[in-house]
């Protein structure tokens, strides 16, 4: 399942890049997420997904696979991958998110802007994914939507 979210941030690419580089701060945006340890580009944590009737707790680890910021600030890109499993062994989740940053059209006030594109390839597996009318797929789409909405708000 691939999901793409786009928004524009009122800051230059380098500043936006730095904001994304802070795992703990980014994680705050994911509802129910918590980072338990950070070690360089790797981190561990958990997500409690609670939506309507569903409540699942995933634990796992992640890392920045790639982080590149063009010297002239003309582009930035990071690839973040994470995987985890449900506390009760009923499912697995894997995600690879590619964050692409490009300078956006200058703002009305003349300040810099960055166009952000987050493409997430999300893979939910195991029992939770195969039961109930694609419920879990829909739930995860919703959660990701909330995550990027929050990021957008936080950075703008």
């Amino acid at each position, binding site marked *: 399942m691939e999901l793409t979210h786009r928004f524009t941030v009122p800051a230059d690419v380098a500043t936006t890049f730095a904001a994304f580089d802070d795992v703990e701060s980014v994680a705050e945006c994911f509802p129910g997420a918590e980072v338990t340890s950070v070690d360089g580009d790797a981190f561990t944590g958990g997500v409690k997904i609670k939506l309507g009737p569903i409540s699942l707790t995933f634990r796992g680890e992640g890392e920045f696979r790639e982080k590149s910021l063009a010297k002239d600030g003309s582009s930035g890109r990071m690839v973040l991958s994470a995987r985890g499993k449900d506390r009760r*062994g009923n*499912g697995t989740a894997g995600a690879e998110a590619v964050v692409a940053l490009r300078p956006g059209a200058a703002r009305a006030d003349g300040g810099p802007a960055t166009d952000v594109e987050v493409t997430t390839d999300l*893979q939910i*597996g*195991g029992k939770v994914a*195969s*039961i*109930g*009318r694609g419920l879990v797929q829909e739930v995860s789409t919703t959660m990701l939507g909330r995550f990027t909405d929050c990021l957008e708000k936080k950075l703008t």
Partner: protein
Amino acid sequence: MTTTEEAPTAEAAHDGEIGRDRRRKEDHRLLTGRTRWTDNIAPPGTLHLAMVRSPYAHARITGIDTRDAQASPNVVAVLTGADLADTQGVLANAWPITTDQVAPEHKPVAVDRVAFAGEIVAVVVARSAAAAVDAAELVDVDYEELPAALDLKDAAAATPENGGALAHPDLGTNNSARWIFDSAEAGTGGDVEDAIAAARSGGILIEREYRQQRLIPAFMEPRSVVVDPTGEQITLWSATQIPHITRFLLAATTGVPESKIRVIAPDVGGGFGGKLQTTPEEWAAFAVARRLGKPVKYTETRSESLLAAHHGRDQWQKLTLAATTDGTVTGLKVELLADLGAYVALVGGGVPVLGAFMFNAIYKFPAYRFDCRTVLTNKTWTDAYRGAGRPEATFAVERLMDELAAELGRDPLEVRRQNWITHDEFPFTTVAGLTYDSGDYESATAQAVEAFGYEDLRAEQARRREERDPVQLGIGISTFTEMCGLAPSRVLGSLNYGAGGWEHAEIRMLPTGKVEVTTGASAHGQGHETAFSQIVADRLGVPYEDVEVLHGDTQVAPRGLDTYGSRSLTVGGEALALAADKVVAKAKPWAAHLLEAAPEDIEFAHGKFTVAGTGEGKTVQEIALAAFAAHDYPEGIEPSIDAEATFDPVNFSFPHGTHLCAVEVDTETGAVSLRKYVCVDDVGTVINPLIVAGQVHGGLVQGIAQALWEEAVYDDAGTLLTGTLADYLVPSAADLISFDAAHRSTPATTNSLGAKGVGEAGTIASTPAVVNAVVDALRPYGVHDVRMPCTPARVWHAIQEGSAA
């Protein structure tokens, strides 16, 4: 009661036994729940199992931490594949279709690698089912994901060189076997390439590719197994179609002597081929019970059943039909890819081969080639599902005949008539090398056409087309035949099948006059007890009520090859008829002795031995009592009139029929609704019309369901998305219409009953009838095919694309 009073009533009953509508004697206990399913069986101290299953389609197991699970309340043991490695045995493939077939070893509990999502990686044993399930959640398995081979065509093309994913990397290929039949090589017909070349220059060539979607048998009773290792023998109860084969393979793969194993299939709630399997769950339960020395039970949930019980169909069919411009078919070439899933199941590899002989169906094709590859993928294994191979073949050829008719602008019935075998041509040896013994396609079709109101419906169709009615009418035809009654053992041997196809029966004449019958055909919902009682009552002339049919227990009915492939009546029923004939033969000297007459003067009719020309006589039941007492009997014979018989047919049987379906397609929404369904089936002699109707109706629903509703769907990581019955759409009565199902009979010549088999007919015939009807409705919209299941969305998209083209 005196004999004179009894005779007339008994005679009346005897006369009517074959072909009599009897309500099934087993239904009272099945419908009221006054019976035992495997899950109801609980030897004292039974422990409960829960399976920990892989969430990944393909992964290496890098670690299993069972400590938390072990420490969970009421847990007795947590066993991994490594723990069971030495005792669990393997799951056998009984039909390696070629001598060089590539097949991975299939351990019941995976040891270091999983090859499909749902594969068992550990077994939790606890004092209650709830405790087992709770603890299973605590087993922490670490996996390293491997690339998964999922798409059938991609998997077939993958090699280590091109980097395509391999379902089992160590095998170096996903291609398990290639099996070819060529009529030119076999000497049964011409060279299909010549026919195709001729058609290409001046004839008609129909080239199509059809998809047989993956299906799930979805039997009503989930699989369940209980193993009790206490006592001298290990008893395994299982909701299985095949207790005898299971016993043999348990012994053969675990080293436990066969004589120390008893397998019981109690009442079993449906199978449809889905329980024609020896399963990882059975093998794991067997190993765990032996290891712990305690009875264990495992019953799957519905979701586990959908996930891990074997699936069916799943083929790509590439078809080339050559014909002359006058509509005479000159050749058919079939290139087939069959998805085996992760392992080669019990007869999984052979399923397409069962179809190989049926692509020419009822037609006189002069040239034929069948080329099939079986392919391993990282999905649930596939195996027999009602019809096994034959629905796929029938679908292909019946769709093609409609396409040919459309190409010619002719009525599809006419094109079929032009090509089919006529009733005076039987016995007929087909281009696939089979000899059809009997049939009458013309009469069955004429009767169906009449009952359907074919001409009126065609007229209505024309009117709706004319008026551009948003609801269009389509008419679908399927004139099918199948081979069933599996099967002549020699033929099976020549196909490299691992067992024979005979069946065994025994008749025990009890002193009280009751008749105890055992059959090796283990019923799981078909009504064997009723139909077999009718056969015995008919042959022995005893009251139907006096016959008790026992089955499904290797200690009660020790010899048998079980129930599948519409074989029970044609093979098992015939074995019983032969055993009954032996009882009569054995009773005759007793009768002569007791009646003080010469054996030559004794006649047997309506259950009674009489001395020719006198009214004096003895019933077979009276002789049973005499044989029990054994006070007075001739020298040289044994004091018993019990008999057993084993029947091995010399040929398959070939039921056939004409199925006509009318559907209405709402072109605005794509919804397909059934309007009328008529079928006339020739299943040979009908023992019990009610049971035949039940088999046909149920079969139709399953075939229609393939056409319209059912499909097992995986996502691109190999997760099954149809893991509940809210996602895997099995129809209910509310989705169907009343069927008009009639039958005719040209008796089979290969068994004395004249029976041909009916278990799979409806399923085989109906799928193409429905899809042909859907496509027929949409031809004015430029539609030539709709992939199964013909969902509203697919139909609507097909209309958009067809109209745009």
